[in-house]
């Protein structure tokens, strides 16, 4: 049961090898006994999970099941789940039980999948180490004696899947929050094209960058998840009205003749030699599958982190204004007047990193600074996008590192937030361009997993999943599991 993929679990349920109830109890039991080590869940929904598992078993028995019926999984705690606490990793929402569900949540419900609970995350998805969660840090299951970060912000989802506490989990990515934890936890994570997955009910960090996507062990499971998650949603004006392909359909296609671009800005002297050799080895495998490589240039890559750290905070400064203590969420005790209520509710409810980004964003949008910061950042964003558009004239997909290093220790970035921001140096540009990006396990450094990143053209998720699946059919990095689980 432990290492079965969704595909395999689905077959087992169909054949009656085990029931959904048995399966879910197995995972709930693992969470109850093992997650004390990792803290990857904020909420475990025992009762709801058992009720839906029973429901699923009835469907299976009556022959009304599909491949998702009765499959256990977890949602990142950024997705609103009707009737189930949804915190977004913040004290601000430690009493928030949404009266409605996110579209992504509805989609999984409609398939009859069984939600085990809500995974831990950096507060409001702001962080790359899961240290900013109000509900405590998440420990990377690959840690040995020294506890390591799982990456972030979807660190809870990544740690839970890596520790086999759930076969898969949903995640979100604003600057690398699916791909970087996937890399650090040895998983396959995909951030789809902006607009592919509905943002409705997904608590906003930076609206023009946020995108939900799958966190799984295999490309095949990621493809199955994307089939459920993707699609046009009339409740999200930025969701794109374009047909959703069956992402599993092309998994087994040959990648012979595939043209892969290698950005020279990613493969420079700053890339560690260990990571360099991991990527070289992976490229050899791809070459063996018929792919060819070409050096390309993304000349404005070095501007992606600065542009991102203007745009994302600017958007978050407005997105987080609704947390004012008036209608829901944390409200300070005995406010003396309106201003006092605002100031104390927000000061008490938000953590340091969230406050830092609200301040940066408000500053960047202020009268007299808007042109120098926000407008300039948007111009840079366009240049970054144009770089990719021209690159895709020559190549089918782009390959590079996901994160600069393997998992690191807590507090290792010291007090310097910019060091942490640089964790996302290879992932941020795809968010700015709205392109799909993916991380898949490519090797080990110091016995810790590291990923390689694929960046695809708009709506080219099928091709990326095809490449990843082909790579995983000749490698076994994705099958490795941490020892301490």
């Amino acid at each position, binding site marked *: 049961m432990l290492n079965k993929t969704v595909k395999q679990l689905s077959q087992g349920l169909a054949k009656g090898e085990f029931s959904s109830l048995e399966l879910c109890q197995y995972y709930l039991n693992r969470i109850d006994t093992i997650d004390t080590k990792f803290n990857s869940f904020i909420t475990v929904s025992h009762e709801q999970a058992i009720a839906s598992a029973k429901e699923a078993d009835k469907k299976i028995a009556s022959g009304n099941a599909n491949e998702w019926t009765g499959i256990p999984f977890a949602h990142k705690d950024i997705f*609103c789940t009707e009737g189930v606490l949804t915190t977004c990793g913040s004290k601000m929402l430690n009493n928030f039980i949404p009266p409605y569900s996110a579209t992504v949540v509805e989609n999984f419900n409609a398939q009859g999948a069984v939600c085990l609970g809500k995974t831990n995350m950096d507060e409001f998805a702001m962080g790359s180490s899961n240290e900013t969660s109000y509900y405590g840090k998440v420990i990377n299951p690959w840690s040995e004696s020294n506890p390591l970060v799982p990456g972030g912000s979807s660190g809870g989802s990544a740690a839970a899947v890596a520790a086999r506490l759930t076969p898969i989990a949903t995640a979100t990515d604003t600057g690398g929050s699916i791909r970087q934890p996937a890399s650090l936890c040895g998983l396959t994570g995909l951030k789809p094209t902006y607009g592919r997955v509905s943002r*409705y009910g997904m608590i906003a960090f930076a609206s023009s960058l946020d995108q939900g996507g799958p966190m799984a062990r295999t490309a095949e499971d990621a493809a199955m998840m994307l089939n459920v998650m993707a699609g046009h949603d009339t409740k999200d004006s930025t969701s794109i009205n374009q047909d959703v392909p069956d992402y599993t359909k092309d998994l087994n296609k040959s990648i012979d003749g595939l043209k892969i671009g290698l950005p020279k800005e990613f493969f420079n002297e700053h890339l560690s030699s260990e990571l360099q050799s991991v990527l070289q080895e992976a490229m050899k495998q791809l070459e063996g599958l018929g792919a060819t490589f070409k050096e390309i240039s993304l000349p404005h890559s070095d501007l992606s982190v600065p542009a991102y750290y203007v745009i994302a905070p600017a958007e978050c400064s*407005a997105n987080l*204004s609704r947390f004012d203590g008036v*209608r829901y969420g944390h409200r300070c005790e005995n406010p003396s007047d309106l201003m006092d209520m605002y100031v104390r509710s927000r000061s008490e409810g938000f953590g340091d990193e969230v406050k830092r980004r609200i301040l940066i964003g408000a500053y960047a949008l202020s009268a007299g600074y808007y042109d120098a910061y926000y407008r300039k950042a948007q111009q840079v964003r366009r240049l970054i996008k144009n770089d990719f558009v021209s690159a895709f004239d020559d190549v089918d997909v782009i390959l590079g590192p996901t994160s600069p290093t393997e998992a690191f220790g807590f507090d290792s970035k010291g007090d310097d937030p910019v060091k942490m921001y640089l964790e996302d140096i290879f992932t941020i540009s795809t968010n700015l361009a709205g392109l799909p990006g993916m991380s898949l396990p490519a090797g080990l450094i110091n016995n810790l997993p590291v990923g390689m990143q694929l960046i695809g053209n708009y709506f080219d998720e099928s091709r990326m999943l095809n490449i990843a699946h082909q790579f995983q059919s000749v490698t076994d990095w994705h099958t490795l599991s941490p020892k301490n689980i």
Partner: protein
Amino acid sequence: MQWETVIGLEIHVQLATKSKIFSGSSTAFGSAPNTQANEVDLALPGTLPVPNEQAFRYAILFGLAIDADINKKSVFERKNYFYPDLPKGYQTTQLDLPIVGPGKVDIKLDDGSTKVVRIHHAHLEEDAGKSLHEDYQGMSGIDLNRAGTPLIEIVSEPDMNTIEEAVAFSKKIHSIVTSLGICDGEMSQGSMRFDVNISIKPQGVEELGTRTETKNLNSFKFMEKAIQLEVERQIDILEDGGSIKQETRLYDGDQHISRSMRSKEEANDYRYFPCPDLLPVILDDEYIESIRKDMPELPDARRSRFCADYNLSDYDSTTIAGDSGLSNYFETSTKISGDAKLSANWVLGELSANLNSTDTSLNLCPVSAEQLGQLVLRVKDGTLSSSGAKKVFGSIWAKPTAQVDMLIDELGLKQVSDTGELEKLVDQVLSGMEEQIAQYKEADDKKRKKLMGSFMGPLMKASKGQGNPKLFNEILSKKLNS
């Protein structure tokens, strides 16, 4: 010194869409607090706006009606400020690329002249909720039913110089938006709210003075008074050697005072930026033309038609045509009465007087257009005297289900128009008035007219007030002049 007043207006018009601008909640007025606020209106985490196309159609209709440029690309922005009745902590509005660009509106002034007021732009935005500061023992109640109601904010150039012009402009906008059917025009429910920018400068000087903005006036009467108060306040300050502070002011209509709300220094930095949850709205000519096809008749065109088709006076046609409800009422009643002039008199006379004195809006008027048409018809065909008709009108006002003809019978107001019967009465009355007849015969034309009255009194008395005075007059003249 002679001072010149400069006035510009910002008018918030609530659009009469069924649902809100970014959510499916109803916009109906007067429901229990917070019953028309769904998760989007409450700004629950994760919710997103979806634009209401009808709001765009209405805004475009307004733009076309004032001959404005319709921007084929418009962008929603976030205007950031904290207030408890602003659930998201920002208002979604338009700034650099509003839906309606520059346009113009003609206003007619009392001296018969016409003035053009330029419109700077009109933009789409969402209304806030309401804060209720009474009845909560030191706390405030928040009602979010209004939050998300679509508005267009119409911004004029500072082209007005008198109260009369400002009021005429506001009434013209009211008349346009109600004629278009894009706003119910119910000022008492806040469907239209006015912000007035006022400055003064010495007569003949080019440069504008420092302006103040008086916010949230919701009646023409208050606007008139608020402008007057503010102009006087500014003149007093300048004549005392002071200077005007740029500020936002609030007018209290009940006490006829105004006070400063915030000065320029205290003004918020709204940190506008394009809303990333909403894509730019791109329109094409075909779409705009399809809306133009739905354009109803506008007040100016209607006025010309009333003059030409019904032969109404300039004053009557302007007054009626300016109000689309009144225009429909007038036309319906005229169809029945067959007499436009007489119908117009009744609409502008008895009907308007009753509406005003009882503070009733036309759509709640107890006397229907059909009933008034019937009534006017009975005046025209001689069944009713005009004083009798007023009595009937009063009875219907009190009991709206009544039928005109049945009421006339019930009240015994039917005039006797049987000439045989009337002649008999004339003969009877004249037989006792030989002296007056002799006087009449000797008198000149001018005097004769006066003397007629002395016969009419006894005649009306003899007919118990039911004789048709016109017929009495005819019979009498014939007899006396024979």
